[in-house]
Each structure stands twice: as structure tokens, then as C-alpha cells.
């Protein structure tokens, strides 16, 4: 949509495997919880650092499907955040398919 319209795009993704699978002009990948592509609220330094990494790739990339995995580590407890990013109630989608999801063998 946008690249064909003459606009250069840069994606910040938490799911680089999907970007690789389906194709993307350029992307930086962060290992941050969902809903937090630029980090924590009020953390100006963290937000700006990710943005500057994204802008660097935007400027340097020369062809499509350039995906750079960034080194930023999530600064808070990971076990806690595996729950904390999730909605308080399951989404309608997950609620609908919960039996199917629960039937998956671990």
C-alpha cells in the first residue's frame, strides 16, 4: 500500500518470524511483550533508542526483506510479563477457540 505509493516504511515488530514468512520492506525486531514495541510507558530513553535503531535501518537498507534483530533486553521480570501483557479477559477469538487450544498436547 504505502511503498507502492512512494512512501518508505519501517516496521518495529515483536514477531520477526512472521515478517520473514510474509515479506516486509524493512523491519527491526524487538523481544518486547505485545503492546510494547517501543518499550515501557514514561521510559523516554528506551523509546527513543528503539526509534533511532529503526531510523538507522530505514536510512541504510537497500532492498526488501531486510530484518534486523535488536539487542534491547526487556528491563522487567519476564515471568511476570508473560501474563502482564495479556488482556484481563480472553479475547473473543481465544474464548471461542479455547477448547481447541487446550486440546493441544504439550
Amino acid at each position, binding site marked *: *500500500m*504505502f*511503498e*507502492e*505509493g*512512494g*512512501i*518508505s*516504511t*519501517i*516496521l*518495529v515488530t*515483536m*514477531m*520477526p*518470524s*512472521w515478517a520473514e514468512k*510474509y*515479506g516486509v*520492506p524493512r523491519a527491526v*525486531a*524487538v*523481544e518486547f511483550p*505485545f*503492546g*510494547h*514495541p*517501543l518499550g*515501557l510507558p*514514561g521510559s*523516554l530513553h528506551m*523509546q*527513543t533508542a528503539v*526509534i533511532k535503531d*529503526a*531510523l538507522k535501518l*530505514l*536510512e541504510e537498507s537497500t532492498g*526488501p*526483506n531486510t530484518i534486523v*534483530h535488536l*539487542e534491547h533486553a526487556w528491563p522487567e521480570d*519476564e515471568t511476570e510479563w*508473560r501474563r*502482564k*501483557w*495479556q*488482556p*484481563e479477559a480472553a*479475547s*473473543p*477469538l*481465544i474464548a*471461542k*477457540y479455547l477448547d*481447541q*487450544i*487446550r486440546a*493441544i498436547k*504439550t
Partner: protein
Amino acid sequence: MVVDSYKWLPYRLSAWMQMEWQAPGEPATTPFTPLAKPLNSTRFALLTTGGLYLKGQQQPFDVEREAREPDWGDPSYRVIPKETMLGEIEVAHTHYNPADAVEDLNILLPIHRFTELEKAGEIGSLAPSAYSVMGYQGHPVPDYTQWQERYGPEILEQMKAEGVEALLLTPA
């Protein structure tokens, strides 16, 4: 490091997503427009899929219909002016906890960070309008018809009218 796309997901949920979720067809080639100018003379816009809207001024994304039809997602968009302040944003999105985005929209739509970068001379400018959509577009195959035929072209037209040359995309 290699970013683990499934790090934050429960095991069964990530397995289910990888089994059941589908793309709406893969493009033959990925489009690519090189950045035409240095960053410090490029005009930017921002777009997030986080479901942000202006509290009390805009309609929320239609999560009530999504509750009735879990395989459907609202395809519309909201324009968020770059002058928007903290506290003026609300979120309608059923697939993540929006508390942090409501507290600081910059984690998804960094209008204040880009305004700072503009003042510092690191980018050319931030366009007046930023954009918010609600990323979930249906299951198992997302329906991008409305996006491709109506909303996407409308957003592109507004960006072109505002002289936008580059776009930061931030999914939730």
C-alpha cells in the same frame, strides 16, 4: 541476538497460532521504496495497529461486534493529531492489555518522541496526522478487503496531501 517471536505467549497458544492462523495470500514480490532523502530532511508519519482513539471525541473501534462475531475485526481507522497530549487517548482492542498505551501513547504511537527528534534536527518533520487501526482483522484468514479498497487508500491520500515521505509502523 535472535528475537524469539513466541517468547511471551503460552505454549499452547503459540502452537495454535502457528497451526491455525493464515495469511491472506502472499505477495509475489515485496515492494520497496528507497528513502529518497537524508533523515534530517524527511517528513514522517506514524501508524499503529494498537486500537488507539481520542477519548470522548472519536468512536471506539467496534469491539462489541467483535464480541458477537469473534472471527471479525474492525477495519476502520482513526486520525490522531500530533498535538495529542498524554491522557487524551483511549484504546479499544481485545487482544492485549492496553493500560500502558493509555498511560503513554508513545509506546505505540510516538508522536512526542518524533516531535523531539524534529526539534533536535534528527528528522525533517512529523506530519500533522498520525493513524491508528485495530490490527486484528479476522480469523483464520484476515479480511483486508476494506483496508485495500477503502481505508488504506484514504490514509495514503492524506499522507500524500501532508507531504509524507516515510512511515513508522508499530503493531501491538
